[in-house]
């Protein structure tokens, strides 16, 4: 564990230096690592976490761990883990929900809450590979402090004319909030697509990540627009 920082009231970012063989293996943006904890009496628990950092920095991985109420693994990470601790890990895992710089056609990213995690890896990778592929991120969170990586995302969107950002809050907005303030519905999906590829066009690919219900709903909207099943990639942080 090489660094631990607070990102939001319930989310901390943990950076883990990888052993040489894992650093050499590298990973694709969108993949995850399994972490395993072992109690002194041998009890074990493991969970998967999406990598938020770009594959361009293969020696370490950054993970966003949200403190889940009575979560046995997340509470351990939030309360007890310190810089210098060793954590057992396995990976990288996954492959369908991945973005590579060779994708040059328009891509739509839709994230809910901590679902932004694998999308951050994709957007960071996209930025560092100087991709000019048109992209739009629609990111839904409960309150403004829950918008993970907000400053970085806004900076990315400001610096890159090919990247658009739509933020929406679902629980409460302050009077100076500039973004949207409702759950992502079909109208917002249509609006995002229109902004990305114009009327009567569809994105080449969409990545949707968040809780199961969120992903199910957005996935259905995207199929309704006419997108092909295989072009809609989903990552469900169930249940």
């Amino acid at each position, binding site marked *: 564990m090489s660094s631990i920082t607070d990102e939001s009231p319930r989310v901390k970012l943990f950076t883990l230096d990888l052993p040489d063989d894992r650093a050499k293996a590298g990973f694709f943006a969108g993949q995850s690592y399994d972490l395993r*904890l*072992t*109690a*002194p009496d041998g*009890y*074990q*628990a*493991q*969970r*998967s976490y999406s990598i938020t950092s770009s594959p361009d920095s293969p020696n370490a991985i950054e993970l966003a761990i949200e403190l889940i109420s*009575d979560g*046995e693994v997340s509470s*351990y990470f939030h*309360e*007890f883990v310190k810089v210098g*601790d*060793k*954590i*057992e890990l*396995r990976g990288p*895992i*996954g*492959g*369908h*929900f991945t973005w590579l710089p060779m994708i040059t056609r328009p891509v739509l990213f839709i994230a809910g809450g901590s679902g932004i995690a694998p999308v951050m890896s994709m957007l960071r990778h996209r930025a560092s590979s100087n991709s000019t592929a048109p992209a739009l991120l629609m990111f839904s969170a409960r309150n403004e402090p829950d918008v993970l990586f907000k400053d970085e995302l806004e900076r990315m969107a400001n610096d890159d004319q090919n990247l658009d950002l739509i933020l929406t809050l679902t629980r409460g907005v302050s009077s100076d909030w500039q973004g949207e303030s409702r759950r992502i519905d079909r109208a917002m999906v249509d609006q995002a697509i229109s902004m990305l590829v114009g009327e009567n066009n569809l994105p080449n690919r969409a990545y*949707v990540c968040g809780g*199961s219900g969120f992903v*199910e709903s957005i*996935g*259905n909207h*995207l*199929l309704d627009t006419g997108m092909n*099943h*295989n072009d*809609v*990639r*989903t990552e*469900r942080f*169930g*249940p």
Partner: protein
Amino acid sequence: MINNKFFGRRRPEPPRPIPPGQYLEDGFPVLSAGPTPRVDTATWEFSIEIEGETVGSWSWDALNALPQTDLHTDLHCVTKWSKLDTDWRGVTIDTLLNDAGAEAPAGFVMAHCDGGYTTNVPAADVIDGKGLLVHTYDGEPLAPEHGGPVRLLIPHLYLWKSAKWIRSLKFMDQDAPGFWERYGYHMYGDPWREQRYTGD
């Protein structure tokens, strides 16, 4: 490796042993790799292919007219959750093969599904009551997000082998990787030997 201050949330002992690395889940998580396909039972058809030839195909009505099997079983997902005491109704692969007048060849079988999902299983693991096409879960029609109208159910293997939205089983001589297997998931997937990923 010991994480000294880790205690964990000790859940009540499961009523019977669950595979290594698993935890008991009361809910029924949905973790599909893509959106939920829309499948219309009016046009749904399932087929079995042996040596490139279709030996049998069944419409929704035909499937429901065959002798049905009720199964009470446990589910084990590679993402670590296990759900005990689930109830299913459907048709065994044995019944389908029998109806087609065919016998399962030795070798392997690939499940093909709406949405493009595939998964591979040894032929021996879908016969002798080990594999079913199921359409009813917990007394209700199987919901689309759980694989409805019809999914494959092979409860002795990790749940990714129980292919949702199944449309055909194609027998093959050699084993070949399906969707998740190509991304590094285990070719066989026995939860009791914790065969999650390649090399386990």
